[in-house]
């Protein structure tokens, strides 16, 4: 993906969003939807670029803003089928996400971004990439999946370990066949089995612990999910000899301005909107076990 050298949807005024429209909605499950957005200004829409792992601020006037990772599949560039939409997978959690839910197709909102540090596609070139996701954390990795699969020459092995509470909480299941066909190895697990679930039951850490083959010298781990899940997953990987310098996690806090001015998303000395959300593990390790940071 091209670097976001020209963030066309970022104005000089940090609080000024660009008008956008909901082109379609994919209902992932009860409380999670993917909104396929397009900027109202065609010039901005065609010039907009992001890097996998970055996020946008979605703005519902009168209600507020929420930070959502851009999960657009593919390179985020125009394709033969026309320009891609800008996809945002959102879990209903508060007022803004509820307002988004009420907007519906054709609904008008504001978008500004992209913001933040992306997944380390460049610095990990040549590595076997192990993606570990929990719940809606896969949304932050979806763009990275497409990017990795589009560049298999640079990534000799791409694997995904993905856990959710229940089988109907697994995101993007309709795409797994295509991902597998493109060369990704996928292993899923659920915390609680249900009728019809044939797969593994247990936490994602267990998949990581028994993953074969395992080459800690050549593997890079990218992890996104609830903080507690990331802590345990990373601990399991380190226990199997993976160096800390080859582990990346995507952090979440209350991001509001997205440019390091408002102070809400601090995590220790980090402003997650600016120096994150993707961090190399060793940079934030000492803060991950501190309660209430």
């Amino acid at each position, binding site marked *: 993906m091209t670097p976001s050298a020209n963030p066309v949807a970022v*104005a*000089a*005024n*940090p*609080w*000024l*969003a*660009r*008008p956008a*429209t909901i082109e379609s909605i994919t209902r992932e499950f009860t409380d999670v939807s993917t909104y396929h957005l397009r900027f*109202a200004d065609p010039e901005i829409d065609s010039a907009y670029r992001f890097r996998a792992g970055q996020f946008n601020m979605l*703005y519902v*006037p*009168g*209600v*507020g*803003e929420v930070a959502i990772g851009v999960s657009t599949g593919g390179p985020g560039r125009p394709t033969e089928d026309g320009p891609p939409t800008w996809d945002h997978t959102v*879990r209903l*959690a*508060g007022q803004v996400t509820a307002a988004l839910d009420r907007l519906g197709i054709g609904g*008008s*909102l*504001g978008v500004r971004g992209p913001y933040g540090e992306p997944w380390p596609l460049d610095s990990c070139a040549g590595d076997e990439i192990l993606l570990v996701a929990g719940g809606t954390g896969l949304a932050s990795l979806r763009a990275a999946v497409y990017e990795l699969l589009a560049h298999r020459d640079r990534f000799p092995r791409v694997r995904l370990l993905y856990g959710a509470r229940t089988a109907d909480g697994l995101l993007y299941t309709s795409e797994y066949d295509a991902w597998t066909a493109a060369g990704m190895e996928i292993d899923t697990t659920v915390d609680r089995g249900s009728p019809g679930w044939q797969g593994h039951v247990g936490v994602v850490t267990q998949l990581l612990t028994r993953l074969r083959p395992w080459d800690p010298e050549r593997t890079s781990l990218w992890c996104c999910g609830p903080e507690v899940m990331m802590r345990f997953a990373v601990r399991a990987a380190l226990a199997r000899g993976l160096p800390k310098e080859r582990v990346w996690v995507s952090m*979440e*806090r*209350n991001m*509001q*301005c997205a*440019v*390091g*001015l*408002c*102070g*809400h998303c*601090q995590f*220790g*000395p*980090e*402003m997650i909107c*600016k120096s994150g959300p993707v961090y190399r593990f060793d940079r934030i390790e*000492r*803060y991950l076990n*501190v*309660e*209430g*940071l």
Partner: protein
Amino acid sequence: MAERETKPDPKGKSLPASDDGPGAAGWIAKSDFQSFLDRLVALGYRTIGPTLIQGAIGYDEIRQVDDLPKGWTEHQSAGSYRLVRRDDDAWFGFNLGPHSWKRYLFPPQQTVAKAIKRDDGWQLDDVEDAEPPFAFLGVRACELAAILVQDRVFLNEHHSDPIYRRRRENALLIAVNCTQAAETCFCTSMGTGPRCVVAFDLALTETELGFTVEIGSPRGASVLAGLPIREAAPAECAEAASARQQAEDQISKRLDTTDIRELLLGNLDHPQWDDVAERCLSCTNCTMVCPTCFCHSVEEVSDLDGGQVDRVRQWDSCFNARFSYMNGGLVRGDVRSRYRQWLTHKLAGWIDQFDTSGCVGCGRCITWCPVGIDLTAEVAAIREVPK
């Protein structure tokens, strides 16, 4: 008189120390000072300076020399501020009240964008800030330092705040050196004072009959043109130097900043956080009076039919419970974690984020804490028994 440029400098580089030794400073008599205030008005400035407000010395518009708190001083200590009559008529014979210049460069409430509902969707608009240029009269050395700190926050290389930038670039900074110190002052520990040496357009030192005047910028020099200002006499310079020395000599509070970043970030589970949480009311006073605290939220203010929305930026505080709201819960649900957030951000995280401490040693957070929590004492307690 030497001239220096004082444009906002995101790096906050130190300028050479000023000098009002004989021949280097000007002098303006108090009896001529009204002509200086009138000049500022004539140049289009809105002059803001110290004046009595609700039993304290705060900042507000100054038009007449009589608006200044002549003959008043304050007694400050942890959790206490009292206005007291001086036994002389000094105009700037005090240190600092609860206000800081941040109120004007980064206002407590400010509309930063608008949304208007049209048939084809929301129109999202910028806003113009129409505030006339400010002349800040009576800026202390620690406050100049605080402005340089906020410059790094709001005018950094990644993003700049257009309202802050405009106001900051237009503002004329007329510093007045401290000639006394409060019990809560510790600028010498933070390397920010008490002498004004950087970032001012003009720096005054009050003497009995007038002010010595140092020029810090071409803009400062041009403001003075035509005013009844003469070269300061050696005796006047000596009187000013001795008054400034008095301020320095009176400073008794200390904050040991040695390795303070590691000290605090390495002691995030120190029992002192529990101790201070027993006293802290999480009232946000310290963050409201702090001249560098910048955290803010943007509220959506709709008209009645929801067709027009003002996005109103307001000062927020890490002591507000909702500040750390995320996904239906609070990250920092107790006072312990909120106080720790404030102190570690101010004295440690700030260094990572802006390459400077967030504290300038003004002591306001100590004075205005309703229970008298003194951050220098909290740091000392952690330093005494580190993990």
